[in-house]
């Protein structure tokens, strides 16, 4: 039995989020280049045009600067009715001061999007779903979207099978793109190749219904990142979108007490009008994010892409979905669907993400340390503020922070940049001159 795909080969994809849709899109694009006709089914029970939770895949909703550029180069331009707001800058908020990081080009290259039709209390639907846009792209390339939830899989004479009560479908390749927030991972446990769920932590997301003009006035086109002293919160962010601002909190299993403390803390209060009582929105969720990858995300005729395999630590999950989906599609079209092919051609891209996450863990440990030593935190922000008048390539701390918080560059690049002695000299200087607390809070 050949492991190479050919005209008429059948591919089943479980999950029509970014990983599943991008896999289908690239698979069919590469097959077209090879003049090969494939039969592709995407099983996705959600209707992404629905308001949350019916159409939402629970995420902060940021498409990183690097991913925007890669997709544009691939010929995928995210339409205006999906991009709720272009982001061109970041504002860092700490207990003592704020700093703004602008892109040297002053160009909007980060997209704030909603994964589904919008939050629960959306009054008028003005923007379209990002996941819906990608699924439509896959559909335009020839994939068939099947609005069914898969609850059973098995093997049929060496080929994977999707089993429903009334009928079963056998595939030459089965792709798992089930994320980490559904029970979909259990399906791959049923296939008996040793798959186990990735390690996850609970985050928190809420949508504040403030209206377009108020959001523009309060947050502009900047993403606001908060480094607070709240225990177990790594960082939090307010992402301005269309009618809503998304609040995302990352840390060690975020609970209600941490959420309440966050909304009351000074840096957050300073972003809202005095008479407005910041409180969680009607639409909120506690999605899990992947913290550690699955060691072996494949077997013969089965491969996992996106979060249910590996994702980037803390950010750019959609970017990781793009990388894994494309690497898997390249493997199956130009090589084969055997486990040897996945090991040789898919795993290098997968391991680049997982190795990078190890570096990311070290960087976040360093950030925690800096955050605990107040002069170092002050030094960091003062250096960022001073750098804004310098040419782009001399904004060493700003570039580092930009890449760290936007997810635009791999963590290894952040680490390499931090090895520059000129960076350290300046950082030490700014920290040493920040031993005394500022006379007033600089906001």
């Amino acid at each position, binding site marked *: 039995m050949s492991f190479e795909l050919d005209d008429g080969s059948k591919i089943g994809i479980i999950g029509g989020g970014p990983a599943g849709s991008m896999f289908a899109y690239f698979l069919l694009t590469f097959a077209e280049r090879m003049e090969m006709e494939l039969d592709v089914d995407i099983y996705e029970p959600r209707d992404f045009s629905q308001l949350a939770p019916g159409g939402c895949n629970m995420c902060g909703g940021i498409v990183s600067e*690097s991913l925007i550029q890669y997709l544009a180069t691939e010929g995928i331009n995210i339409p205006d009715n999906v991009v709720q707001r272009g982001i061109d800058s970041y504002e860092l908020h700490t207990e003592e001061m704020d700093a703004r990081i602008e892109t040297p080009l002053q160009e*909007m290259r980060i997209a704030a999007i909603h994964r589904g039709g919008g939050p629960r209390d959306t009054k008028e639907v003005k923007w379209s779903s990002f996941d819906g846009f990608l699924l439509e792209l896959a559909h335009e390339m020839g994939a068939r979207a099947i609005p069914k939830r898969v609850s059973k899989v098995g093997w049929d004479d060496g080929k994977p099978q999707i089993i429903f009560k009334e009928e079963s479908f056998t595939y030459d390749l089965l792709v798992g793109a089930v994320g980490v927030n559904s029970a979909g991972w259990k399906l791959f446990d049923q296939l008996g190749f040793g798959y186990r769920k990735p390690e996850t932590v609970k985050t928190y997301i809420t949508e504040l219904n403030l209206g377009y003009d108020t959001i523009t006035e309060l947050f502009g086109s900047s993403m606001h990142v908060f480094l607070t002293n709240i225990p177990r919160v790594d960082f939090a962010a307010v992402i301005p979108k269309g009618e809503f601002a998304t609040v995302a909190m990352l840390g060690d299993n975020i609970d209600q007490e941490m959420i309440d403390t966050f909304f009351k803390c000074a840096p957050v209060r300073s972003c809202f009008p005095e008479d407005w009582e910041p409180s969680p929105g009607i639409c909120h969720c506690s999605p899990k994010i992947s913290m550690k990858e699955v060691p072996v995300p494949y077997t013969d005729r089965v491969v996992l892409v996106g979060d249910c395999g590996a994702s980037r630590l803390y950010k750019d999950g959609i970017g990781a979905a793009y990388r894994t989906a494309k690497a898997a599609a390249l493997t199956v079209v130009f090589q084969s669907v055997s486990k040897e092919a996945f090991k040789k051609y898919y795993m290098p891209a997968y391991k680049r993400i997982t190795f990078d996450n190890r570096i990311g863990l070290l960087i976040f440990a360093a950030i925690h340390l800096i955050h605990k030593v107040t002069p170092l935190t002050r030094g960091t922000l003062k250096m960022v503020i001073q750098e804004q008048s310098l040419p782009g390539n001399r904004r060493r701390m700003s570039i580092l922070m930009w890449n760290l918080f936007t997810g635009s560059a791999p963590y290894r690049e952040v680490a390499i940049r931090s090895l520059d002695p000129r960076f350290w000299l300046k950082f030490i200087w700014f920290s040493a001159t920040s031993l005394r607390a500022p006379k007033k809070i600089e906001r």
Partner: protein
Amino acid sequence: MKPLAIRKGALGKEYADQEIICRQGEPGNCMYVIQSGDVVVLREEDGVEVAVGELGTGDVVGEMAIFEKQPRSATVRSKGRSRIMTLDKRAFLRRVHEDPSLAYKIMQKLSGTIRRLNEELEQLKRNQEY
């Protein structure tokens, strides 16, 4: 004339009618993707501008700067209002090193340009013969 969907807050940077996006002779370290609107590609010779092409939404322009260490071969000017996004040379080349297939669309475009130039050259030669 088709209406332009220029919306504040969308991706890229807005250019006014006739505004120059990149200029012939200048060093180039990026290419551009047209998010919305149209641009004209112009060659300037002895102070005379000749329009050599017109591009619209979704098209990529200035890609030769990614592969050559040569100054920009043409000027690109906005025709009406447009919104353009910059694609960094370094970010692109780093990613191409990991995933060479990323360059496929650009190779396809360059191949199309060579085909079009061959046809125009053939036409010019035929005209000379007559």
